[in-house]
């Protein structure tokens, strides 16, 4: 008789949860979709950050990417909004309850076309949330039309050529004052999970523009958003390490080769430079990096720009420090004296 193996206890995090407990319903996307890989990294990052899942608020618009908020953290609430309008829903919710960890997932169509207006104003306001763009250059759910992030000259499977320039969401975000701007690739899981953890610790809007190939409509040889193209062309600008606030920083670092960025919550991001002397806190350099990458058709990934001290929208609006949603009813209605005073002044 063979011995029965001890049931293996899955590891749990600081709040006693396993990674499985950060999962959601089964994905209905195509097999091999880049988005599913990103979903797994978001799940992993939430687990590693020991987030209490009931504090997670997931937001999305419409499109393949926007379906994915159902695929992680189903112990948190989710809101699947209308096309391109997720920023407004998230803004309203976060203004009244900043204790939530807001994670928005959008696509390139949802963000760069129909939602461009709301995206721009979300960034400008610095609403506290993680905003992931699953960028594949095409509209997947309507069967493969070009989006506004498709590179000029790239081709559809049908042979149609895109004549218009691509919108660079990272450059746009930097220009609009976003304090955490990253580009990554769904195939670079280690980098992505570190960037996500940094984004969750950041105060304000954190934008992650993640190239996430569409296996059905935009994974062919003439695409610049295919797995092969991204793998062949990805150049990380640094290696990223995330040190949560509760861990002591043990390892010394050489400021010549490594940049250390302290985030608002006490966490640190360690950037080991791979590109000569890149400073991720230099806004002008970050912008020129985006522009140069375009000119050279380079696919640069990493934390392109970070400004941890920026005030978020609640601080700017004077409503930080107390979630308005938690104020008891009795303190929401002014007393009779106040109404009497107002009426007296109108007599």
């Amino acid at each position, binding site marked *: 008789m063979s011995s029965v193996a001890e049931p293996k206890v899955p590891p749990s995090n600081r709040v006693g949860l396993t990674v499985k407990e950060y999962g959601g*319903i089964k994905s209905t996307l195509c097999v091999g979709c880049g988005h599913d890989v990103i979903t797994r990294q978001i799940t992993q990052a939430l687990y590693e950050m020991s987030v*209490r*899942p*009931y*504090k997670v*608020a*997931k937001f999305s618009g419409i499109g393949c990417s926007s379906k994915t*908020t*159902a695929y992680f953290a*189903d*112990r*948190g*609430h*989710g*809101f*699947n*909004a*209308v096309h391109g*309008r997720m*920023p*407004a*829903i*998230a*803004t*309203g*919710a*976060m*203004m*009244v*309850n900043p*204790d*939530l960890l807001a994670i928005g997932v959008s696509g390139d169509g949802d963000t760069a076309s129909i939602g461009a*207006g*709301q995206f*721009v*104003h979300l960034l400008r*306001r610095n609403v506290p949330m993680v905003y992931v763009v699953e960028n594949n250059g095409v509209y997947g759910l309507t069967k493969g039309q070009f989006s506004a992030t498709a590179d000029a000259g790239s081709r559809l499977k049908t042979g149609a050529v895109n004549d218009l320039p691509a919108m660079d969401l990272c450059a746009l975000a930097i220009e609009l004052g976003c304090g955490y701007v990253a580009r990554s690739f769904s195939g670079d899981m280690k980098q992505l999970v570190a960037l996500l953890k940094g984004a969750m610790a950041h105060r304000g809007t954190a934008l992650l523009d993640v190239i996430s190939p569409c296996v059905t409509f935009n994974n062919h040889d003439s695409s610049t958003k295919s797995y092969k193209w991204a793998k062949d062309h990805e150049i990380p600008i640094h290696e990223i390490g995330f040190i949560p606030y509760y861990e002591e920083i043990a390892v010394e670092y050489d400021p010549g080769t490594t940049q250390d960025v302290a985030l608002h919550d006490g966490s640190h991001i360690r950037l080991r430079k791979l590109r000569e002397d890149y400073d991720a806190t230099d806004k002008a350099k970050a912008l020129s990096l985006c522009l140069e990458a375009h000119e050279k058709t380079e696919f640069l990934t990493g934390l392109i720009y970070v400004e941890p001290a920026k005030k978020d929208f*609640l601080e700017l*609006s*004077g*409503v930080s*420090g*107390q979630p*308005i*949603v938690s*104020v008891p*009813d009795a*303190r*929401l*209605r*002014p007393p*009779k004296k*106040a*109404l*009497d005073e*107002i*009426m007296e002044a*109108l*007599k």
Partner: protein
Amino acid sequence: MSTAVLEEKRSEPAGRPPVLNDFSIHVATANGSGSMSSNSILMRAIFQMGIPVSGKNLFPSNIQGLPTWFTIRASKDGFIARRRDIGVLICMNPETAHEDVRTVAPGAAVIYEESLKLDTLRHDVVFYPVPFQKLVLELVSDGKLRRLAINMIYVGVAAWLLGVDMAEVEAAVSKQFKSKAAAVDINMKAIRGGLEWAEKNLTKRDPFRLERMNGTAGKIIIEGNAATAIGCMMAGVQLLAWYPITPSSSLAESLIDYASKHRLDPVTGKPTLAVVQAEDELAALGMVLGGGWAGARSMTTTSGPGISLMSEFTGLGYYAEVPAVIVDVQRVGPSTGLPTRTMQGDITSTYYLSHGDAKHILLIPGSVEECYAMAIDAFDLAERFQTPVFLMTDLDLGMNNWMADPFPYPDKPLDRGKVLRTKEELEAHVAKFREFARYRDVDGDGIPWRTLPGFIDSPAATYFTRGSGHNERAQYTERPEDYKNNMDRLARKFETARKYVPGPVVSKTAGARVGIIAYGSSDFAVEEARVILGRKGLQSGYLRLRALPFTPDAAAFVAAHERVYVVDQNRDGQMYDLLRLELGADATKLRSIRHYDGFPLDAETVIEGIEAGEKN
């Protein structure tokens, strides 16, 4: 000048009986010339004399230069609708002076800038030329202030001509300038200058007189937008997201202003209202839905074009069942239409706003008191029914000055609806109903229970919010029976709402064969019309609708009358249409009176409509 001479000069010409406390004063100026302060002072002084009064600002879509008019109606009977005939005209705008003179009633008094030489235009009115330009040079040394102060001079001239008590004028000036001594002094000097000049140089030849009475004791004067704002504040609104649009902007600004004083948390001192000026109306309603979903009382305020833009999000709010309050201060649309003129323009479009089988709760206040009270109701209903609720005011109600009783302090606590806020509440719910299912009708009224993000640390509490493609457990589905089940429950919820919305105000007149149905700001003109028709021997019953969906009262009212006139301030008879759909066989009893020229409704229009109908 001795009092005796003054009295003699003011005495009415032989043969014309005095018109006492019952006429309109029409002031024509150029936009941006600061006449608003002068007009407010004149109106308030009359109000303080105890004379019922209303003030209407007819203004262009412009900041400076285009013509604007302000009409003050004094009415001893308390009628405060627009009055068609003008008794006293003050002509300060050369551009419109000729046209203005042509439009006044025969026998009117016309005060005008002497150099305009208007006195040859008509022979059936009384002209009072006044050298405003010369006077302002004498009275005001600061050149920059003259443009504004010139309007104060006509206050003084009118005060002399009509018999406005100067002590009340001074009190009104003091109120207007919040007792800033320098401003009070300069303006009072200009007003006294006008009065003294008129005393010395004019002889009264018109019949219009104001005399102190006791018709305004304890009353307030307020614009509907400020009234709505106070209601929203007292309702405990926690998030205001808005985009500027005439005529609703002053509502948001008034709320922000009041809240900055009265909505600081008594315990922490922090604001309990968050405000976002959104990038457009789409975003404004999106933020409101986000706030409502998160558990906060959330609102936006807009007008017709904004309502159009909110269409998609309204549908999401309806299907996902998220509370939201949307104030629609209706106007003529579109933005290059007559954006500064009034209309009941959005009744049908808002009732059915959005895609699919959407329909909504509309509250329709008919006075500033109701703007206040229904703003509070709107938040209670939005949370009770977990749906967007529209408060339908209009430009006339919202931006004009209305006399009203002071608003009462709310007598009910906030109704936050069916929310499971704590773990204990959730556990009790699960014990009773087996599980928490977001969209299950466990109470039989069509209204499900909800939880809020971030409140209960339990996997049993969470759900995923999306449009109509969900089952009772908020799971995505395209199964026909799930979709139908959900739609039927939403319809059931709407039926429940009929019992909760404010019912109509019905005024029955024994033996009246004619009925009138009206709503919103039409009330003032309709009430006045009924009195005048009654004096002529035509008695009428009256039902004033205050909400959609209809309650059974409307059908009963129509059944009790031979003919019912439905008064709409729009071309297509929007409420008339909705009533016809509702009534079935009795729909043939309905007649439609439609007023749609951009002006507020007046009693004459209603009287003419009914008299014409009754002749046939």
